[in-house]
C-alpha cells in the first residue's frame, strides 16, 4: 500500500484509503508495511478512521448467527443423545466383513475367470490370406474351364440345324 495518501491527507483534503486496502488489512492479508501505513493514516484522517471502525460493525451485521428454531436445536440434541447411547459398532465389525467380501470376490474372479482364447497368430492370418488367394485362383480357373467346356443340352438341336445348313451349303457349292 502506498503511503501517498498519508502525505496528501495531512491537510485533510487528500486521498483516502481505498476500500480494497482496508479489506485486506481487516482480513489480515495486507503486508506489515501496508498495515503500518494504514494505521498512520487512520491516526490523521477522521473519515478513514470512522470507515475503519465501521468495518467491524458491518462484518458483524453481515455475519448474523444462523437462524434456527429452539425446536430444531432440541431435536438435534435428542438425536445426539440417542447416538451417544447407541453402542457404536466396533471397527472390526465393519471392516472384517468388508475385507472378507472383497477377498472372496477377488478369489472368485481369479478362480472362475473364463479361459482366454488362444491369441491369433499373425502367420495364421497370412496363411489365411494365401489360402484365400489360392482359393480365388482355383475358383477363377474352374469357372473358366466350365465356360469352355459347358454346353447346354438344349443347344444340340440348334447346333444340328446349323450343321445341316452348313452341310447343305457344302453340297450346293460342290454342285456348282
Amino acid at each position, binding site marked *: 500500500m502506498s503511503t501517498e495518501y498519508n502525505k496528501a491527507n495531512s491537510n485533510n483534503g487528500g486521498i483516502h484509503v481505498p476500500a480494497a486496502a482496508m*479489506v485486506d488489512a481487516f482480513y489480515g492479508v495486507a503486508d506489515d508495511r501496508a498495515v503500518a501505513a494504514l494505521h498512520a493514516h487512520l491516526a490523521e484522517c477522521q473519515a478513514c478512521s470512522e470507515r475503519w471502525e465501521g468495518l467491524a460493525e*458491518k462484518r458483524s*451485521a*453481515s455475519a448474523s448467527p*444462523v437462524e*434456527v428454531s429452539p425446536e430444531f436445536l432440541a431435536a438435534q440434541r435428542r438425536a445426539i443423545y440417542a447416538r451417544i447411547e447407541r453402542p457404536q459398532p466396533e471397527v472390526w465389525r465393519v471392516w472384517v466383513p468388508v475385507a472378507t467380501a472383497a477377498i472372496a470376490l477377488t478369489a472368485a474372479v481369479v478362480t472362475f475367470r473364463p479361459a482366454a482364447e488362444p491369441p491369433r497368430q499373425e502367420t495364421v492370418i497370412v496363411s489365411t490370406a494365401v489360402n484365400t488367394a489360392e482359393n480365388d485362383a482355383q475358383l477363377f480357373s474352374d469357372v473358366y474351364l466350365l465356360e469352355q467346356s459347358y454346353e447346354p443340352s438344349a443347344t444340340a438341336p440348334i447346333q444340328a440345324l446349323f450343321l445341316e445348313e452348313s452341310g447343305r451349303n457344302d453340297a450346293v457349292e460342290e454342285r456348282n
Partner: protein
Amino acid sequence: MMGLMAEPLFPSQAEAMKAEAGRVEAEWMHDFGAWMTAEQRRIYGLCQRMLQDPDEANSATQDVFLKAYQALQKEDAKTLDDPGRWLSRIAVNTCLDRLRSRKWQFWRRRPQPADEAVILGMARSKAPEGEQQLLASEIGSRLQLALSRLSDRQRAVFTLRHYDEMSLEEIGETLGLDVGTVKAHMFRAVGKLRKELKDLYEGGQR
C-alpha cells in the same frame, strides 16, 4: 466370620461405587449437555456455512458432538485450554471430510435453488436495525452463497475469520496450519470474494 462379614459388605461397596460412578457420569453428562447447548448454534452455523446444506449441516453437527463426547470420555483426554476452539477444529475437520467425500458425488455440485432460498433465509438477520444493518445482512446472504466459489480450505479459513472472528494465528492453531499457509488461503479467498466484500464495506457508505 470374616467371610460372613465380607460377603454382605462387598456388594454394598460395589453398589456404592457404582452409585458414585453413576452420579459422576450423570453430573458429567449434565455438564456436557449444558456445554453442548451453549455451543450448538455456533457449531451448526459453522457447519451450515462450510457445507451450504441444512440437512448435511445437521448431520455434521451431530457427528461433531458425538466425536467430542467420545474424545472426552477417553481417560487420556487432556484438559482443554480452549474447549470452544477445540470443538471448532472438530467441526471444520468433519466438514472438510464431508466436502472431500462430496467431490465423488458429482450430481450435487451446488445447492439447489430451493436450498439456496433456505440458506438465504437462515443467513438473514432476525431483527435488522436500520437500513445499514439490513443492507449488511443482505450482502451477508450474498457473501454466504459466494462461499461456494472458494476451495474447502479457503472457505474454512474465511469462515473462521469472518464469522467466528478468529485471528490468523488462532485459525492456524484450529486447522493445524502455519500462519503463512492460512494467510495464503485467506488472500485467495478475499480475492475471490472481492466484489461482495467491496459492496459490504463500501455499500451505503456514510
